């Protein structure tokens, strides 16, 4: 009876999230409470050692992903610093100069440059910052609105793979060390980058049309502010945290912190203290939604890994855990679309809880981590419920479902290639 109740909670809440009747932000804590209650975990207890819903699931769960939350806050802070000292804009301007006057070259170079920016910091704020500079340049260069938006979407997906501040969730949930996460990044990234480049070339050249437009900025060019570039050496700043984690095995928060210091030293802004403090406040605002999700994920994790719940769920999960490389590849490739619409493989939702259970059921944490990261590539580009997808569709006046339709087959291919490599490497 309890197992039916738990399954019902999963099915109903997945349905509510996928149909957007209930936000993931609220659904995750509600699921955590209901799952714990069905398994018989008490709401309160006089005994301080008893695992209760209030203390174990809600209070404990809220702090469970503290490393990931710190990583996210510091990552957002770093992103705002890069933006405030002018590094982000300078990278885009330099990319435009490098690309010259050819639309395809502009699209490819913007994709690469934006990937570097997003590897240092992502989130909706950074997507808007990059998008508002890069998309108009691409549009006036003759690229279609869909391709201009696609370039930013793909760059964001590649950037997330290398963004150290988002790795901490795998450390918290699956207990995989940071240097192990770093060492497997290329398996997630290389197929994605290759497919992304093919997509950009395909969609740019698809109709073989040249576009010329009479377009004007809403504000005159001579009123544009902060057009001054930062010095060239400062442009390496976004790579500093990634390089520190990859090569010196520095932990995430320290790497981002050192990245911020290096940025200030290389860019020497006029008011460094103001930059640091305002960047922290605005950075936290940028990731407020993601922080809320992490708290909810932590609560869900606390609930599903609590012995009374885990005992009930474990037999179900064990039945579907892949036991061979072929099954590992097939299961995660075929089920990868379940990462979109806040589905059960979404790392920013139920996916983290399911991954934790899969590992508890016997799968190697590294294999679960890789599968979750690879599936996230599809989610990052195609999911219409992503705030950055919504913003890009709105900004470029394109249809968000059209973007899903046009990107899903490509992303499915990228997931399949990465999963094959992962299956042969870690299983």
């Amino acid at each position: 009876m309890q197992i039916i109740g738990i399954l019902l909670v999963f099915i109903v809440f997945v349905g509510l999230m996928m149909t957007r009747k209930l936000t993931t932000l609220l659904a995750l804590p509600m699921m955590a409470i209901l799952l714990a209650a069905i398994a018989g975990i008490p709401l309160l207890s006089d005994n301080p050692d008893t695992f209760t819903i209030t203390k174990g699931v809600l209070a404990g769960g809220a702090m469970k992903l503290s490393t990931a939350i710190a990583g996210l806050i510091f990552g957002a802070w770093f992103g705002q610093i890069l933006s405030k000292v002018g590094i982000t804009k300078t990278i885009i301007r330099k990319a435009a100069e490098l690309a010259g006057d050819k639309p395809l070259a502009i699209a490819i170079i913007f994709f690469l440059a934006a990937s570097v920016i997003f590897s240092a910091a992502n989130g909706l704020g950074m997507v808007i910052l990059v998008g508002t500079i890069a998309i108009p340049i691409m549009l006036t260069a003759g690229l279609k609105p869909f391709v201009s938006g696609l370039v930013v979407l793909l760059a964001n997906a590649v950037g997330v793979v290398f963004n150290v501040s988002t790795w901490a969730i795998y450390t918290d949930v699956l207990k995989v060390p940071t240097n192990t996460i770093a060492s497997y990044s290329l398996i997630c990234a290389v197929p994605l980058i290759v497919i992304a480049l093919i997509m950009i070339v395909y969609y740019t050249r698809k109709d073989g049309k040249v576009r010329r437009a009479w377009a004007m900025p809403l504000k005159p060019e001579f009123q544009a502010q902060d057009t001054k570039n930062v010095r060239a050496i400062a442009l390496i700043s976004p790579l500093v945290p990634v390089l520190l984690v990859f090569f010196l095995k520095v932990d995430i928060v320290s790497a981002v912190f050192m990245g911020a210091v290096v940025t200030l030293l290389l860019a020497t802004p006029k008011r460094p203290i103001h930059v640091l403090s305002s960047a922290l406040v605005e950075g936290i605002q940028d990731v407020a939604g993601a922080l809320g999700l992490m708290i909810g994920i932590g609560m869900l994790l606390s609930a599903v890994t609590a012995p009374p719940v885990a005992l009930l769920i474990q037999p179900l999960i064990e039945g579907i855990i892949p036991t061979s490389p072929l099954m590992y590849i097939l299961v995660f490739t075929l089920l990868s679309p379940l990462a979109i619409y806040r589905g059960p493989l979404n790392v920013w939702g139920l996916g983290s809880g399911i991954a934790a259970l899969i590992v508890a059921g016997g799968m190697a944490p590294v294999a679960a981590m890789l599968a979750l990261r690879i599936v996230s590539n599809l989610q990052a580009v195609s999911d219409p419920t992503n705030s950055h997808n919504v913003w890009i569709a709105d900004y470029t006046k394109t249809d968000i479902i059209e973007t899903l339709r046009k990107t899903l087959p490509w992303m499915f291919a990228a997931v399949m290639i990465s999963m094959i490599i992962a299956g042969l490497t870690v299983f």
Partner: protein
Amino acid sequence: MMKTAARTLPSDAVLGYAELKSDLLFHRIPHSKRRYYVERPLAIGREQATSFKSRYGTDVGAICRDRGISVNLNERQGTIGQIRFRAQIELSAKERAITLYKSSMEELRQCAGVLLPGRSFTLKEITDIHLAHELFHDLEFTELGYTNKRLDDISSLSLGPLRIRASVTRTSEIAAHAFSRYLLDLPCLPNLLDYAYMIHSGTLTAAEFWRQTEVWSGELENS
């Protein structure tokens, strides 16, 4: 410069220079070549307009039809982010199509008098200005070659011995504006309407605009 009742209208060179300044690679153009990237496209556009007018007349709608260019009126606003699209042309071997943004045309009709006192435009005249502009791009595609490709390239990026060269794409727009102006006998380059719109919509004051034309004029004279 041409005198109007209220002010002196900016010359073709000044308005062409204003267009050139919005090129992404403007700061890579050597000072000594700025006049070249303004005057050459203006001359190309003007020459083409004169010869085109004597051969085909000025009924740009009919000319587009005769050339097999489809013209679509888009009811949606052409604003994407901070960019306002007024018209665009899509060119391929199979199809050539001009899209005009209706609301944008209407806006320009309403605000034209801001910088051209006593001069009013009908919606058809505004539409013709844009059709003529896009028609020039069709001419570039089918017969002339793109203006920016016909002019000298600039060094867009230099990293030690590595030099990347690119064309100045805005020169194509300058030539298209000149084509439109001389084909339709307009008092000035039609990108003046863009500034009229900015003044009308409050993002720019008339005083700022006139001050800026003096700055542009000075920069051009010193180049």
